Structures are given as C-alpha cells and as structure tokens.
C-alpha cells in the first residue's frame, strides 16, 4: 500500500482579528480509488432484475485538521483531492 500525500496553503497568512481565514488542502493517495459496482440478478430463465449500483472506496482517506491556537476549522468543500476549510482569525 502506498502512503498518502498532503500539502496545505493559506493566502494571505496575516489576518486581523475577526477576519475569515481559508485553508486549502491538496491531498491524495495512489491507492485511493472510487469504484462503482453495478449488480444485476438473473435467474435460470434469463429474467434480469433492474441494475442496482453501489459505490466502494478503496483505501479511503480521512482528513484531520488541528490548530494549536484552539481555533475550530470547518469544512467548506471537499472534492476528494482538494478540500477547503474556514476559521475566524
């Protein structure tokens, strides 16, 4: 299994108290894959059910955000490779 990768950025990095701060996280893992399984059931007579789909994530990733000043960062968006978090300065 490969290790995940991550890098983070803030722009700007200096804020006035009360301002909104945004943190951008770029992350990934070579093993991380999102699969869709589509299943159809057929009987001996050849009758087929309607297909159903389920999603499976191979090697799922979890993100943890901590701040040594105690500020709470909340997730604004997450595409699966880019996540944006927000906190108040």
């Amino acid at each position, binding site marked *: 299994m490969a290790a995940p990768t991550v890098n983070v950025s803030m722009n700007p990095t200096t804020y006035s108290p009360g*301002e909104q701060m945004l943190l951008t996280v770029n992350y990934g893992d070579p093993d991380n894959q999102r699969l869709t399984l589509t299943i159809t059931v057929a009987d001996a007579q050849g009758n087929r059910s309607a297909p159903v789909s389920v999603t499976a994530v191979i090697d799922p990733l979890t993100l943890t955000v901590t701040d040594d000043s105690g500020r709470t960062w909340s997730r604004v968006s997450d595409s699966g490779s880019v996540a944006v978090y927000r906190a108040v300065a």
Partner: protein
Amino acid sequence: MPRVTVTVRDATSKTATASVAYTVLPPVLGGYYLSGGADPTADMAGGNFRSLTQYRSFADAHIFPGYQRQWLVTLGRSGVQINMVLELKHYGASDTGPQTFTVDGVKYTVPAPAMTIQQRPGAVWPKAYGYGQVLAGQCDGLFARALSQYRTMGFGVNIQLASELDTDHEFGTTEAGKAYTWAESDARAVQAMTYIVNWFRAKGLPQGTTFSVGLGGFDRACFRRTHPEALMSRLDYLQWNVYATSAGHTALERFRRTKDWAVADLGPVALSRPVLIAEWGVRVVEIPDQAAWIATVPAAIARLNAERGPFIARTNYFNSGWGTLSPKAAGLAALRAAYARPPYG
C-alpha cells in the same frame, strides 16, 4: 504564531502531515477626540472606543488630568488608552511671561517662552518654549510639574511630544531673535525631544508609560529628518495624522501615504514601532458623506496592517477642525459601526 496542521490517514493508518503558520494581528484600537478637549464620555459610551487623544501645553499649570477634567481619570482607569499630546507651544496669548512654582517641595522658575512657531505669513505666530531653552535645562520645572501630576493618575499613558512638528516648523522658527529654517528647526527639535524623553525616562514613571513624537506626516523630508534611529530607540510609537480633504481621497491612500515614506526612508528601529494615529478626520466640505468614507476605514487599515511595515495600532478620530462630524449623529454612528468591525476587535 498559531499553526494549523492537516493529517491525511488511509485505510492502513499510513499518514501524511502538513502544516502552515499564520499570524493574527492584535486588534486595532478605535479612538476619538472631541473638540476643545471637551468630555467625550457621552460620545464614546456604548461604542468600541478604546483610545483617546488629549492636548496640553507644558505652560499650563494643569496638565494631568487637566483643569476640570476629572473624566479623563475615569476613562483612563476604565481602560481607555490615553495619548497625551504635550506641547512646548504656549496656548495662551495673554500670559506668556516667566513662571515660578513649587513641585513636591522644589521651587522652579521657568523663563518666558523664547521661540515662535507656525510662522505662517500673515498669521500671529504662536509662542513656544524654545529648543535651546529645553537643552539649557530651563524647562525642567515644566517637566517636573507635569510628571508630578501624571503620577497621581493611576495609569500609564503615551506621551506624545509636540502635536505636529512639521506644522510647527513649516515656515521656519525663531528663538531669541535667531531665525531657523524648516530643516534646522527639525534638527533642533530632535535634540530637544531627545532631551525631554531622556529627562522623563530617568525618573520613575507609571507602568505602561510610552513616548512618541508628533508629526502631521504631510512632508516626507521632514518626517525622515525627525525620525533618526537614535531618537526612535527612545520612543515606542511612530505617529502621524490622516485627513481626507478632497473628494478623490480614499482611506487607503490617505492612511498609507506617510507609512510608505516611513517604510522607504526610516531605519529598522523606527519600523519596529507600531503607529499611533493621533488624529484622523474627514472634511465635510469636500466629502459631504463623511459616514460613507468612515465606513471604508476598517478595510483600509486591515489591508495596510497585512502589508509589510509598521503596524497601525490606534486610530483616533478628530471630531474638531477639519474632522468635525456634521451631522454629528450620523458621523458618530459611522464611527461606532467602523470600530465594531475587524481590524478593530
């Protein structure tokens, strides 16, 4: 410096970690001045006013808190940061003679002020104690009197020496019959300001006492001349005043003008000092909607403080002269709204 850390963990508990540090600046203190040195308590009540400018002449027998200004003690003890502008300028035209008085049992005689400043053609030139008089020790009694009164206040203040040296020197000065150019006056003032700061710093001062030297900040060369590193090493703040006097003036450009000169011209000691804007104002003749202009100030200050250079720490609105709020209610409401937003915390 706070730091935020992100950890990504996969299904087998392999992790990757990255972090970034950021800076949250201290809140800027929103402040005020009310015309005539009048009691501003009512105007400040309920708003996020945390800073105040006051003006006193060293010639006055009542400097701290000032004649019938007990409210200044109340405001200071409640945590409002006081910027006391102490001037060598003599405010009274009628009584400018020598003074004899006793401070803590010591009798002092101070000669009549021997300098004229603000020598605008056609105007009456105000008198001031001369830089030569200061350096000769003739004004020590004035400083002793101010210090003795200051010690009774119960809190520290910023002592801003002079209101605007550039305004005082713009048309030259004269002391004891000798004329000095603007640049010569600046050099003499630096010596005198150094003397005064050293005089005070050699004494026991209330905790939290800080010092600055006053400039309007409208002349780049004067600002540079009056901020040598040797003097700045004895001062705690940079200071300049900010006025909008043209319809095209924006808050960003007006607050940044002197800052940009400082960043370009001053040394590292000067630039390590935060900035105290003792006065800022919007002149209603050119900018009738003062409230709209005031509303743009928080973003301008936040942007300037996010840039390199000295941190703007306090901004005191000058509700007098060029800054007179008219109508007052709308102007005060705008100030309250502005001081309620970042970077005023």
